[in-house]
């Protein structure tokens, strides 16, 4: 048994773990846990900032902007003002529609915020002016709204897209991508839906003495869907029959009879041009310009070659669920696309990935991990010169152990790995080797002291650790205290920086424990008492003699 009564927590920890066989297993477990956390923790480039808010859209057809302001925007703003936690209210009064956007203070829980907004609007539905249509409450949702991957689909030959075909193919693909784990919202941008376009010639219309209204009615009266009808037989069996929609293809539309003229029917095709086309009233178009390198999927040099002629395109945007790993989701999406590449090519459709936040996040995280490793190496080399090889090795081991603990704690508290988390690590790196340096230096000094030979190695290690416990604790506490107020910084920047006050104190506390537990333990395994006597430690003699 170690014959020394430690006074400080430092010595107590050192004593408890010094001869314990589980210490090595604990160390290994910590590092493995840290490594697993590093691998499975959701990665993203920037930390998530919880911005809550939403828009209330109230259409009121026929009202001018000034009217909308008075009857919709002003009263609605006053009502929404009653909600607690709202930071700003933005009102927009336009012809025919009033929009009120609310932005909550940062840190307001999203679910509560949305509910409060919805609640307030619904409570006051009876106060809506006459003539308004059902108000729309649309909460913002960053995770779901910001796509992490966007893919542009384009026609391989020529520049004009066959939207009909493309729409059908991409829609089917969208369904498959949506089925991937953790994919949230997917949207199509620049897509045009198929529709039957009926373009009426005004001259012919007046020639047949017809009006637009008549044509509209004629179409509506034919294109009806009726549910199946059930009838019963005499012996109570069901007979089911349905009326088929009269319009199946473009010819059916052409052959709609609009009116009778001089006893003969006038067909729709007589007064209008009818075709199956795209919804050209939707003015949103998307185009794509890219270099040959990008089109060929050259990852190294996507800027190789000339720009190929501009193409019409449809962009599929893919967002992920909150708190999931952007890297994994992006990879899965890429895999699904790859599987369908040949099929798409057969239909003459090519695709390029135009945004990949997963890759960006992975790159940012990996780059910073390299920085971290490199920094640890530099510090280790410096310590070899200052303290010696074995001592340096012990300190160098303590760094991954501390980072592993911090990572694991960050993982179980639901944080993600992002740029700021890693900067918190880099920031704490200079601080957290300190505890280990102080302990190892004191051990080093004790080993070379005059009375080292008289003492047991174990006692010496525990004593050396215990001795510096109190001031190291206070010094570390001082640094932790500087980080505490930072956690209360508000606003966007506060949320953005939050990983620093969250992780640096954890890393510092971990550094104390690692220094007190593993430094003496490794010291026992690696360090030996020097054979020869040192004589240049006179200064400290007084302190060694208790």
């Amino acid at each position, binding site marked *: 048994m170690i014959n020394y009564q430690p006074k400080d927590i430092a010595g107590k920890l050192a004593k408890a773990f010094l001869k314990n066989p589980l210490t090595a297993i604990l160390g290994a477990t910590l590092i493995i846990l840290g490594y697993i956390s590093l691998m499975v923790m959701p990665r993203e480039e920037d930390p998530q900032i919880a911005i809550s808010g939403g828009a209330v859209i109230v259409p009121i057809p026929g009202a001018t902007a000034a009217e909308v302001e008075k009857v919709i925007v002003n009263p609605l703003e006053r009502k929404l003002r009653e909600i607690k936690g709202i930071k700003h209210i933005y009102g927009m009064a336009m012809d025919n529609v009033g929009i009120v956007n609310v932005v909550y203070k940062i840190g307001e829980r999203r679910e509560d915020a949305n509910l409060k907004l919805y609640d307030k609007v619904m409570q006051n539905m009876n106060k809506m002016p006459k003539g308004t249509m059902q108000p729309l409450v649309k909460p913002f949702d960053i995770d779901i709204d910001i796509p992490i991957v966007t893919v542009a689909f384009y026609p391989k030959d020529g520049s004009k897209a066959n939207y009909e075909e493309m729409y059908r193919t991409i829609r089917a693909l969208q369904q498959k991508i949506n089925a991937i784990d953790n994919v949230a919202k997917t949207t199509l941008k620049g897509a045009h839906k198929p529709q039957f376009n009926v373009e009426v010639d005004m001259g012919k219309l007046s020639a047949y003495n017809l009006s637009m209204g008549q044509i509209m009615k004629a*179409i*509506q009266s034919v294109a009806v869907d009726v549910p199946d009808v059930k009838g019963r037989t005499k012996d109570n069996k069901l007979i089911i029959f349905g009326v088929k*929609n009269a319009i199946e293809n473009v010819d059916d539309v052409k052959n709609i009879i609009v009116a009778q003229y001089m006893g003969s029917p006038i067909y729709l095709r007589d007064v209008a041009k009818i075709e199956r086309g795209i919804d050209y009233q939707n003015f949103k178009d*998307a185009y794509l310009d890219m270099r040959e390198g*990008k089109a060929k999927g050259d990852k190294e040099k996507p800027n190789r070659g000339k720009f190929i002629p501009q193409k019409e395109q449809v962009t599929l945007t893919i967002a992920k669920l909150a708190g999931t790993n952007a890297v994994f989701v992006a990879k899965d999406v890429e895999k699904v696309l790859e599987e369908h590449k040949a099929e798409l090519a057969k239909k003459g459709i090519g695709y390029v990935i135009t945004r990949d936040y997963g890759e960006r996040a992975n790159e940012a995280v990996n780059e910073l991990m390299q920085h971290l490793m490199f920094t640890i190496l530099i510090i280790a080399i410096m310590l070899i010169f200052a303290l010696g090889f074995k001592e340096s090795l012990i300190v160098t081991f303590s760094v991954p152990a501390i980072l592993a603990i911090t990572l694991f704690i960050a993982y179980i508290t639901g944080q993600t790995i992002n740029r700021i988390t890693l900067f918190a690590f880099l920031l704490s*790196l200079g601080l957290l080797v300190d505890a280990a340096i102080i302990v190892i230096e004191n051990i080093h000094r004790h080993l070379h002291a005059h009375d080292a030979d008289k003492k047991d190695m174990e006692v010496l290690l525990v004593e050396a650790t215990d001795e510096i416990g109190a001031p190291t604790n206070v010094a570390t506490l*001082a640094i932790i205290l500087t980080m505490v*107020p930072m956690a209360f910084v508000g606003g966007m920047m506060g949320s953005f920086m939050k990983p620093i006050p969250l992780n640096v104190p954890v890393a510092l506390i971990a550094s104390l424990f690692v220094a007190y537990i593993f430094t003496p333990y490794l010291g026992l395994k690696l360090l030996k008492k020097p054979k020869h006597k040192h004589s240049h430690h006179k200064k400290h003699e*007084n302190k060694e003699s208790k």
Partner: protein
Amino acid sequence: MLEKLVYNILNSKTKKFLVIVLTLVALVLSVLMIPADLVKARMLPGKSANTFSVYVDTPTGSSKEQTKKVSQCVIDILKKEKEITDMELYVGDGIPLDYAGLVKGAGMKNSENVAEIAVNLTNKHTRKEKSFVMVSRLRPTIKASCEPLVKGTVIKLIEQPAGPPTLASIVVEVTGDDLNKLQELSHEVAKVLKRTKKVVDVDIMSDDPYKKYELIPNKDKIARSGLSVEQVNKIIYLAFEGMVVAHKNSKNEAGQIGIFLTLEPNSKRFDTRSLEALKNKLSSMNLMNKKGMLVSLTEVVDIKEVNAKPMIMHKDLRRMINVIAETDNESQVYPLLAARDDMIKHFKKLGYKVEKEPGISTYMFDLHLTDPKTGKKYLLRWDGEMKVTLDTFRDLGAAFIGALILIFLLLVVYYKSFALSGIVLAGSFLSIIGVIVGHWVADLVTTDTFFLTATSLIGFIALMGISSRNSLLLIDFAKSLMEAKGMEKKRAIATASATRAKPIALTAVAIILGSALLASDPVFGGLGVALISGTVAAVFVSLIFVPVLMDNSKAMDIDDENPIHHDPNDISITR
């Protein structure tokens, strides 16, 4: 050697005085570097990214063909850039939402006069030119050649924000009651911003005035011709805009298929943009009344040319028009202050009474205008990145003071002496000299402006803890020498600072090496530089300045009032 130096200083009153004076002079000089613009402050510097976007806004009422034409011009210029791999143009719509677009309202874009281009660049590691430098270089070319294509067009080049996104670097909210006056004032504000140096992409966030024609249904005539107002409205819309009048579900299709009814393009094309052309066209349109007779549209509506009513914007229940602008690779603080001075002069010249916002708050740059003729008041409020910057610096400043108080309390608990705690605190505060000078040096050696940022402040706060630890260990060591060995005070302090020099330097080198890679990062460079230069300053402060203060402090003396405060064994840390 250090021991001798410190001992010499401590033994001479003039030298001690000199050390204190020099330190204070250094402090004052370094702090003065901020108002002297030698070190520039900014919330976060530009960040080199692999992408940027271009927003094209043609005037309200422009067609998508016009918008496409301007966008195409931008794309043609960008095609000459070697580092651009691909571009996606979205007409009438925003690019897929990103961080920048989130607060700039990109998701709300839904009209023919807007377009956005997503520009993807090669990997930033292999690319020489930083994206924000590239944007800054391209901006004048693009604006000069493409904006004139459609008069009133505004083209903005949007960079990815390094930190939290804001509406724009510079946002002026023109607030008041009179709508017309607000329009007028916002144009004046935009004029001033446009002539301010380094301010680019000025845009007034309100609809541009444009002419439109109003068809006023003549209720009397409509009723007499056996029609209804609803019918008239619907038919006009149907004819020119078109409507999906029926749907068809199909098992073979991806979704419902609509039957879209409208006039044939040739039938609905107007000859010119004039009242006459509109009248001509409408006269050939017929409506059928209940009796089955056709009535010409022009017979039942009156046509008038009017100015389109612009959208009315509110913020926090007040009418407001935003004027936004970006800064060209520069902190928004300095152009903003220049613009503000110019505005005060400009509005005074226009006859307004201009008052500054009294007191210090995050709205302290606001201007109050009073129209002398009507007595109405208007407010020019600075929002955007400036507000966020002020809020952040205020919060971080408060966090800093909080950290000071917490450390002070901790030290008082540990030492049971206010004087000693004060010394430690003063010592750690002085690392600000290093932080500011470090930024100045960093600015000198880098090609881009190196800003004092929010991350620098975070670094400074962290430094407080680090340098207070240095002083703490120094005081502990000196005390233990005096108590246990009975050394004379001055000699003990000198010995302590000499022997502590190695471990202090060792930890300092660890911090400097640890932060060296940080310093090269655009966003966290401030933190890295603050840590490196602050640590260097902290080493000097704790080895020379703190000993002087210790010597002057009575709390260091050992007498009956200051008994040995704890076991000397606790504090013999290193040799």
